[in-house]
């Protein structure tokens, strides 16, 4: 065995250029894999954070019937006494805030916007005093101020503002249906613009104070949802039963963010499948490169092979020798690839790539605005390293086999 190893490594030095080129191809593949994985991993990590910070919170309490009717944003399937529930949660050390989700039309007048127009909106009524304990909107304010209780004012997502041409001080009208079904029009002054890192939110966000919605839409203090913040490290699903316990008898359900973001998570899952595709592609590159190189290496040495077989070297040992040689190329490629991958990771993690030109107008599922920043994923680096070696080794099997199928006299006659 010791001989086989030294032999394999010495063989690598026969055609240094070819060895380096093949290893280089593997290295590029491994680097790409590490890099893309880090990028998607970062995007996913940030997406999940932005999802929890700006869309779902950690968990949400809803009326039992709300979720299945959520498309209609029903105001009557509500939580009638949200403050009681919030107090109860507070006694148990759980931070929560109430909200109302309102479906309506945003009416834009020509005096304010140069042109009359209307578009469907979902208005979120928040409790300005507690919302930022659960969500993180206050940090995203780029212009104006945050909401105060009970004012006819609104905050708007910066992309949304850009799209409709709204500025601080603009007045908009929301035409909505109040609790029960009556029409109500609410005139709102834009007092703040939020640049929410979650593009889905930034594209559509319109926020008003809870009390304002309560008054105009006759909510009688009811909220459509109570959002809960749990520690980032908490296993949300594990904590739900205890929270549900607190809600019993009120026809309320608590849902985890994972249940609410099922679509996103399914998408993320699919994207992970995409990463699998990349891995597969890299496998192909490595496989083709390696098998080609090994084929060349083997056919250049058919006579040597004949000599070794004549001297009684078994097929198994010959196979091991070639596979070790391929493993050597794989090792070289893996080392180079991991080094390059780590360098690329430093870039994607610390600098990132700006995809905002795509993200601005297209929803690709990720809840990030544009700059893809990676995250370290040591698991992938280790896997990529060993995969490079393993794939190379295995791929050498076939061409070796082909050479071993030749009879020995033919090998010896080979030019």
């Amino acid at each position, binding site marked *: 065995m010791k001989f086989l190893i030294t032999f394999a490594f*010495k063989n690598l030095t026969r055609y240094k250029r070819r060895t380096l080129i093949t290893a280089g191809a593997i290295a590029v593949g491994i680097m790409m894999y590490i890099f893309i994985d880090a990028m998607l991993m970062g995007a996913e990590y940030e997406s999940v954070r932005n999802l929890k910070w700006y869309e779902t919170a950690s968990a949400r309490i809803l009326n039992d019937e709300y979720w299945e009717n959520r498309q209609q944003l029903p105001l009557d399937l509500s939580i009638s006494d949200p403050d009681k529930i919030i107090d109860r949660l507070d006694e148990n050390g759980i931070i929560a805030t109430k909200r109302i989700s309102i479906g309506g039309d945003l009416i834009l007048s020509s005096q304010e916007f140069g042109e009359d127009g209307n578009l469907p909106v979902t208005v979120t009524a928040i409790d300005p005093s507690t919302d930022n304990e659960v969500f993180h909107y206050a940090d995203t304010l780029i212009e104006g101020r945050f909401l105060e209780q009970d004012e006819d004012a609104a905050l708007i997502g910066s992309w949304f503002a850009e799209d409709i041409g709204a500025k601080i001080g603009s007045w908009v009208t929301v035409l909505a249906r109040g609790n029960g079904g009556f029409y109500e029009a609410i005139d709102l002054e834009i007092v703040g613009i939020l640049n929410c890192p979650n593009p889905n939110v930034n594209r559509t966000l319109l926020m008003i104070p809870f009390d304002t919605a309560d008054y105009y839409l006759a909510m009688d203090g009811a909220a459509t949802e109570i959002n809960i913040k749990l520690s980032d490290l908490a296993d949300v699903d594990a904590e739900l039963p205890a929270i549900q316990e607190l809600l019993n008898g009120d026809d309320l359900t608590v849902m985890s963010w994972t249940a609410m973001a099922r679509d996103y998570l399914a998408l993320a899952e699919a994207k992970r499948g995409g990463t699998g595709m990349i891995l597969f592609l890299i496998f192909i590159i490595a496989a083709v490169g390696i098998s080609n190189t090994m084929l060349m290496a083997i056919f250049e040495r058919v006579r040597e092979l004949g000599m070794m077989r004549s*001297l*009684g070297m078994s097929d198994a*040992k010959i196979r091991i020798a070639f596979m070790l040689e391929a493993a050597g190329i794989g090792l070289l490629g893996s080392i180079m690839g991991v080094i390059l991958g780590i360098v690329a990771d430093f870039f994607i993690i610390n600098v990132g790539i700006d995809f905002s030109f795509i993200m601005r107008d297209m929803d690709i599922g990720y809840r990030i605005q544009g700059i893809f920043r990676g995250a370290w994923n040591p698991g992938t680096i280790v896997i990529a390293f060993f995969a490079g070696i393993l794939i190379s080794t295995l791929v050498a099997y076939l061409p070796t086999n082909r050479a071993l199928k030749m009879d020995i*006299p033919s090998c*010896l006659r080979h030019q």
Partner: protein
Amino acid sequence: MIKIENVIRDYHAGETVVHALRGVSLDIDQGEFISIAGPSGSGKTTLLNLIGCIDALDGGEIEIKGEKVSTMGKKDKTNFRRINLGFIFQTYNLIPVLTAYENVSFVLSLLDIPEDEVKKRTMDLLKEVGLEGMEHRRPSRLSGGQQQRVAIARALIKNPDIVLADEPTANLDSKTGEDILKLMKQMNKKHNTTFVFSTHDKMVMDYADRLVLLHDGQIMSDERRA
């Protein structure tokens, strides 16, 4: 030692059949230094390949050291070769990335022989074939004759009963070729190893103790000269 009985070997090349050996019978004793001679295409290589257990015959029988090698399976043949047979090739077939020493010693590593013994045996043998001081040269830094000496050492290192050499001097000038033959003969005498070599060179034939003339796949003559 080697019993060849009525061996037939046909090559099929498309439609045509080439009768490379048409009933060759030959007995070779331990320690012989025998040359298989004949013009090109007479079947010398074919016969050596059959004795060397690297080819399969179409008729007849070959027995080496009492074992019927002609009916052995692939694995058994490999094992048999590993232990009993040494080969010397016209084109030396040294491994270019290995040193002279390594080209010889690797044969022993296939036989699981302890390392210090490998070292001693290899160094001794290389000295014996006249390569002292060149043990760590790679083939590219050796002349043709020196390379063939390495090949002879490689064939002998495991102390085989039989060494088969297919035209061992065909790639060498006549002076070097003679030296190689002298070395082979010296080894034959010293180790009592049976040498079977083929040639179509008159000068080479003169070194043989026994000369078998092949023509068209048949033995024309078989004379002992020692």
